[in-house]
């Protein structure tokens, strides 16, 4: 019945309604909109083209549904719903039992900017939906830029100098991505005569396709373009980050899956993405930033899966994206709960919270188990598809890297996050459990993680490609358990034997000790090299930018020759010079 109304429209209208309401009405609204939209999508929308308009001689398809976009559509409705449940308490004042005010930073919970956050989150979710149901590149571009702008407000909602600067950096990167997208789209449109967003063959479509891939890649956090994720996510409010983690990168994964499935280059990009963030993740102290690195790592699996390109691999990639939104959301929610209640997110500042926040700790462990791909949890049934597809397509080295990365995931996300936040040394913080709505949101997330893990076949029917795959075969379960056990045993041994000095402020040392056992050369040579290359690229890029800016200022600044006001006599002389120049040009 509502099938001809694009899903984003409901959210955009909702945002207006939210902007003009307050209190309980607003709370009902923010919950009702994703619910109604989700139900409508589930029951009312058939695959097919639902809306077309003509613009500038091209056919635009602002609303097109197929299995791939529907899957992301369901996902984003779930994510929006969870996010709004999680953020429901905003505007009610500081939660009971919070010790956040101890840290001295004003309003660390983002309570003051509740209205702004709700409106921009609503618009943000709507933009993400618009993007995945966009049937052409121009519509995609519009939502691509809207995603950037609306999400930037979620970062600014923290309302601090730092978040302002971060949000601005974030916005610039995403606007650049949008401009590249439009450029690529124009080039493709010019060569093919159509702006429809379908599969693009990188080898034959010309430079436009590459520009498009770079545009998508920036949003997906490709290596060297990944900085914005770890830069921006830890700077948002506790609730804002939950929204941020759900949409932007997943829209990019969707776009790559639709446009570039089977492009070989993606396998290698994805593989690099799976393992390089691990080195940073283990060195990082801010737990939300650790999750940021972990996100790049998870996207790496998806990108590699898309690159492999078989039905199984692409299914694995999008399924993993689905699962990742939920378990990463759960982890960000638990860290957000910790931040809301304590005001801190640094591993060294926290610890021992399980005593007063047992529910949060348990739910966090659910998320950690899911991300580590324990059997019966979601990532197990999704990531394994990608790994199996890699073997089937004889990408053995890629598979090995992924295996290594999986172990890394266990260490930095599966163990480090819950351990440092809730266990480790007792920091003496006695914060209460977060507000109920936060707990409810986390519980729903945890249940979903388990449901997907336990009933994979039901979940698989939603996937876009045809395939025949069963996750729970003996080999797979055994391999995974072995990997997990060895990883866990290593960690526990180090802890118990006292090599792991838990009272020091250095996560850094802990990681080094751990890796000295696992393989010292990895940290020293590979990790060092990655860090050095990263630093080199960054510094040389900054240098080029700096020189360019200086040059621009010399010529274009207020006193530069191009901006100065000239005396009238010089102007006239200049005209005479030009007259002579033109005469010479035309006459000879």
């Amino acid at each position, binding site marked *: 019945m509502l099938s001809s109304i694009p899903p984003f429209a409901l959210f955009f209208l909702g945002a207006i309604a939210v902007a003009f309401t307050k209190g309980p009405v607003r709370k009902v609204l923010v919950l009702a909109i994703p619910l109604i939209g989700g139900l409508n999508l589930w029951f009312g929308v058939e695959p097919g083209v639902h809306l077309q308009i003509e613009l500038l001689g091209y056919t635009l398809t602002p609303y097109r549904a197929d299995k791939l976009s529907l899957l992301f559509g369901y996902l984003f409705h779930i994510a929006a719903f969870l996010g709004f449940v999680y953020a429901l308490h905003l505007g009610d004042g500081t939660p009971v039992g919070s010790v956040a005010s101890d840290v001295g930073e004003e309003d660390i919970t983002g309570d003051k900017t509740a209205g702004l956050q709700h409106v921009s989150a609503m618009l943000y979710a709507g933009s993400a939906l618009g993007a995945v149901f966009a049937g052409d590149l121009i519509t995609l571009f519009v939502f691509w830029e809207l995603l950037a702008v609306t999400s930037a407000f979620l970062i600014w909602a923290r309302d601090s100098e730092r978040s302002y600067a971060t949000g601005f950096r974030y916005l610039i990167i995403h606007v650049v991505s949008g401009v590249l997208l439009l450029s690529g789209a124009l080039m493709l449109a010019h060569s093919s005569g159509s702006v429809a967003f379908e599969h693009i063959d990188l080898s034959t479509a010309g430079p436009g396709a590459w520009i498009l891939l770079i545009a998508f890649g920036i949003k997906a956090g490709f290596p060297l373009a990944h900085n914005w994720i770890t830069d921006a996510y830890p700077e948002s409010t506790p609730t804002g980050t939950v929204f941020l983690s759900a949409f932007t990168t997943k829209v990019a994964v969707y776009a790559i899956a639709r446009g570039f499935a089977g492009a070989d280059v993606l396998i290698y990009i994805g593989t690099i993405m799976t393992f390089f963030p691990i080195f940073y993740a283990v060195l990082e102290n801010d737990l939300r930033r650790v999750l940021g690195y972990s996100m790049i790592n998870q996207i790496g699996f998806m990108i590699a899966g898309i690159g492999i390109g078989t039905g199984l691999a692409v299914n694995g990639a999008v399924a993993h994206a689905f699962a990742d939104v939920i378990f990463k959301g759960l982890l960000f929610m638990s860290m957000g709960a910790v931040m809301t209640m304590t005001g801190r997110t640094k591993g060294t500042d926290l610890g021992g919270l399980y005593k007063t926040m047992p529910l949060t700790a348990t739910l966090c462990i659910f998320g950690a188990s899911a991300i580590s791909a324990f059997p019966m949890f979601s990532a197990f049934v999704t990531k394994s598809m990608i790994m199996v597809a890699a073997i089937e397509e004889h990408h053995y080295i890629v598979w090995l890297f992924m295996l290594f990365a999986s172990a890394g995931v266990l260490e930095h996300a599966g163990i480090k996050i819950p351990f440092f936040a809730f266990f480790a040394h007792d920091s003496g913080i006695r914060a209460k459990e977060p507000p109920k709505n936060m707990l409810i949101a986390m519980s729903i997330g945890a249940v979903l993680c388990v449901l997907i893990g336990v009933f994979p076949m039901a979940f698989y029917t939603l996937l876009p490609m045809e395939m025949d795959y069963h996750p729970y075969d003996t080999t797979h379960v055994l391999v995974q358990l072995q990997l997990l056990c060895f990883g866990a045993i290593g960690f526990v041994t180090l802890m118990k034997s006292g090599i792991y000095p838990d009272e020091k402020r250095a996560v850094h040392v802990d990681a080094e000790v751990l890796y000295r056992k696992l393989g010292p050369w990895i940290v020293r040579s590979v990790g060092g090299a990655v860090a050095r290359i990263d630093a080199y690229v960054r510094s040389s890029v900054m240098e080029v930018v700096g020189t360019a800016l200086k040059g621009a200022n010399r010529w274009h600044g207020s006193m*530069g020759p*191009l901006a100065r006001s*000239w005396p009238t006599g010089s102007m006239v002389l200049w005209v005479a010079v030009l007259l002579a120049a033109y*005469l010479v040009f035309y006459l000879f």
Partner: protein
Amino acid sequence: MSQHLPVLIVVVPLLLAPLAALVGNWKAAWIVAAAASWWAFGVSIALVRRVLAEGTISYEIGGWAAPYGIEYRIDLVSAFVAMIVATIGAVAIIYARTSVRAEVSEDRGALFYSAFILCFTGLLGISVTGDVFNIFVFLEVSSLSAYALIAMGQDRRALTAAYQYLIMGSVGATFIVIGIGLMYSMTGTLNIADLAERLPAVADNRTIPVAFTFLTVGITLKLALFPLHLWLPNAYTYAPSAVTAFIASTATKVAVYLLLRFFFTVFGAEFSFEQMQLDKVLMPLALVAIVTMSLVAIYQDNVKRLLAYSSVAQIGYMVLGISFASVLGVTAGILHLFNHALMKGALFMAMGCVMYRVGSVRLERMKGLGKKMPWTMAAFVGGGLSLIGVPFTVGFVSKWYLVQAALERGMWPVAAVVMFGSLLAVIYVWKVVEVAYFQEADPDDDIREAPLGLLIPTWALVIASFYFGIDATTTADIATRAAEVLLGVGP
């Protein structure tokens, strides 16, 4: 009556201009000026419709057949440009009522509106006439009145700016008349259609390239193509707000029309672009204009000046489109004429609102205006989005055509420069948005929202710039057909 429409669009305002000076009282003068503007607006719409339906209209003034008498010859290009001028004039006159009252002393009001109508009439006269000398005459009317209008600015630097514009504008007009004279000496005619017919026979005479040179320099000076734009920033910065909004959206546009008229109709695209290789002159200058002038705009801290430099960059876009000398390219140029008139008009009007309340348009005085003058600043953002070229704004439509035209010629780097220009526009628009929305206002200021008399015209243009960005079929269709007329490939 209706067969007189071509001449009525010019002579009715021309009759009203002295009337406005005669009535003496500024309110009455404003009514006269508004009548003139709205009359011309209505007639221009009628003319566009008639040209679309019937093709080129010819009107022989005095009953003398061309080329012996003066002919008004309105094809789609003329009608479209006249419509742009008339539309902006009709909106600007509403705006002027409030704005001019605050910025120009009342005893000058009557003369001011008289000059306003004269400027308006001159621009219309240029766009509809079919006679090159008549172009010059009306160019003088519009230029002289424009100098006087600019000199009415609050800041005393307006006088210097107007003086420089006077000198440069006179040089430009003189060059144009020298070019016309040289052409006359070779052909014995001043009628555009007749000239176009007779020029090829004498094209190998060296005098014609010299005429071509004088016209190139003269016209590019009038349209402020880099590097002959030097008069423009000061003139736009210090003129009264209503004048800046009007002149920025019309005067340079009419100069672009002259470029089209002389190089496509009079000389013919083949002669201009293949023999004279005009594209080799226009394209590099346009590209340099887009990049350097956008960069300069970034460094400005007076917003009117920032917009003025942005105008020079935007003129680069128009000329770039024209320099492709293809239907797509010229379409892009003509479309951007219209589109830029809408958005720059809106932006300068928004700045006029700021001027009205704050008394300055320097960036540091605009802190926190997003809260204090929400409608004004929202209008600025709307115009700014168009300047950047965000989809569903007119700016996007023109950039779209421009990039397509570049790609059609296989000029990837040119398309890249166009996109890069958009990025630079993001930066300079953002500069203003940042100050207005993200910096705290001085709590002592009691600045209120601008009055409706200013907001309504401003928003009319903003809404138009969105409307024609979403429904671009009408304008794009007219522009395409106009381009076909110019290139002689149309039906």
